[in-house]
């Protein structure tokens, strides 16, 4: 890839053509639980630049998945506004993709067919479609597994196939819901690097939820820290380092301490759901 300084500022990136900007303002979301309205998200304001990588961390149940579902339009019942390049989001659309927490590959289709699912409603000539599929399978390192069924893949491979499916139709915005949560530490580091490479090459706007603060800092241009009940943005941390980053960078370590402090400052009035962090803290 080219000069890291170009990559540092998303606005300067050659691939970012000025589309893929997400503007969330005054967003609130309620769920009815047992007849009572429960506020899951409250007053979320967030502006995401085209081609930016935003990480979201926050205690379990604070509404991270809900936020992503709203952004991609799987759920349209909310107050406030979500705009993609100035058009209000009302339902799903091919310009917004999502990688689910569980891979959700269709078990009855081969990996290649699963990737093709994302292209079905795009008018593409056959051979271009096949080429795109092959390219994206190669991108996630599954070139030889196009004919495999999902049950024949490992958890990490399935997750990578799901990433290929999400990328193949080149959405302007890609939301990722703990895409690497199910992976072991080693695979995780590898897929993180792959994800970063893909992001740098494709220039897609990415919004990734993760439980791993290291991961959030390693990949994100900014890290959004959320607090729970109701889900709010507690803080937004700028990570002012060029990509790809050195995991040992002292800045990352300082920011990590800050974020962890922010997260643990959370009042613990209820059931302790907050303690979902310690799992993968590495040094």
């Amino acid at each position, binding site marked *: 890839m080219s000069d890291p300084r170009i990559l540092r500022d998303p606005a300067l990136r050659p691939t970012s053509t000025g589309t893929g900007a997400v503007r969330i303002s005054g967003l609130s979301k309620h769920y009815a639980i047992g007849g009572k309205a429960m506020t899951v998200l409250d007053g979320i304001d967030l502006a995401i630049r085209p081609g930016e990588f935003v990480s979201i961390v926050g205690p379990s149940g604070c509404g991270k998945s809900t936020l992503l579902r709203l952004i991609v339009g*799987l759920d349209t019942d909310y107050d406030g506004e979500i705009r993609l390049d100035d058009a209000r989001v009302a339902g799903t659309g*091919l310009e917004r993709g999502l990688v689910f927490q569980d891979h959700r590959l269709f078990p009855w*289709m081969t990996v290649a067919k699963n990737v093709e*699912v994302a292209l079905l*409603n795009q008018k593409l000539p056959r051979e271009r479609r096949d080429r795109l599929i092959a390219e994206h399978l190669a991108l996630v390192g599954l070139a030889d597994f196009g004919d495999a069924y999902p*049950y024949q893949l490992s958890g990490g491979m399935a997750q990578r196939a799901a990433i290929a499916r999400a990328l193949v139709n080149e959405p302007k915005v890609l939301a990722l819901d703990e895409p690497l949560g199910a992976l072991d530490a080693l695979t995780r580091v590898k897929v993180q690097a792959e994800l970063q490479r893909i992001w740098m090459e494709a220039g897609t706007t990415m919004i990734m939820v993760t439980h791993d603060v290291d991961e959030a800092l390693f990949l994100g241009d900014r890290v959004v820290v959320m607090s729970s009940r109701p889900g709010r943005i507690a803080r937004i941390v700028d990570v002012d380092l060029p990509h790809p980053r050195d995991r040992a960078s002292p800045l990352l370590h300082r920011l990590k301490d800050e974020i962890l402090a922010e997260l643990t400052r959370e009042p613990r009035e209820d059931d302790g759901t907050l303690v979902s962090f310690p799992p993968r803290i590495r040094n």
Partner: protein
Amino acid sequence: MTPRLKPAALALLFPALVLGWWEWESRQSAGHAYAFAPLEQIGRSFVDMLSDGTLLFQAGASLQRALTALLIGGSIGIAIGVATGLSRLLDRTATPLITTLRQVPILGWLPLVALWFGNGDGAKLLLVSLSAFYPTVLNTQKGMQAIETRYAEVGRLYGFTRWQALRLIAWPSALPLIFTGISQALAFSWIATIGVELLFSATAGLGTEMMAAQVAARTDVVLVCVACVGVMGFALNQLFGLLRARLLRWQPPIRN
């Protein structure tokens, strides 16, 4: 006895005892030999029926009847199952009707069908098809209703049309249950075929052959037919199992 031999020997012991007892009974008196046909005679009948083509002919007739009915009853069952699985209104209206009708044992319809449609091949086919219809319609319906939201959401994400969602998500995810329905239907239609052939004086078929043999008090022929019915039912089931494994190869192999 070596330990490796023991299971096989035990497995053979029981049939050997039964056969021995049978042979012993057949030698008690002429009257006994009437019901307990000597083993040798059973064997001879088998060879005769095989060599003069009776067995093949009758078995073929029954098989053809069962499979035709499976095709008719099964496809109608799948079609209605898909429809009722997708439409709540249809489900609420048609399903109670089907479950009500299902309470009557298949062969219980026989006198009525005989009066209305006579006892030709059409009437038999109707009953056997009905027996194949119930399991396919109920399983298909269950399969179509069990569409997982997880997968439906992927369809929405990629802008699936209703038809795409049906063809690419609902149908394949219902397929394992549909196959379960078909394999039950296969067993049911085989049973019903033998049943209608026994009860309706059919033109051909293993059931007809058995009934004729019973009237003529030919235990040996009856037994050959019983064995043939059992072996064929088993073989059909196994063949279908292979087909199923081939068509549903996206499922992880079932551990046993």
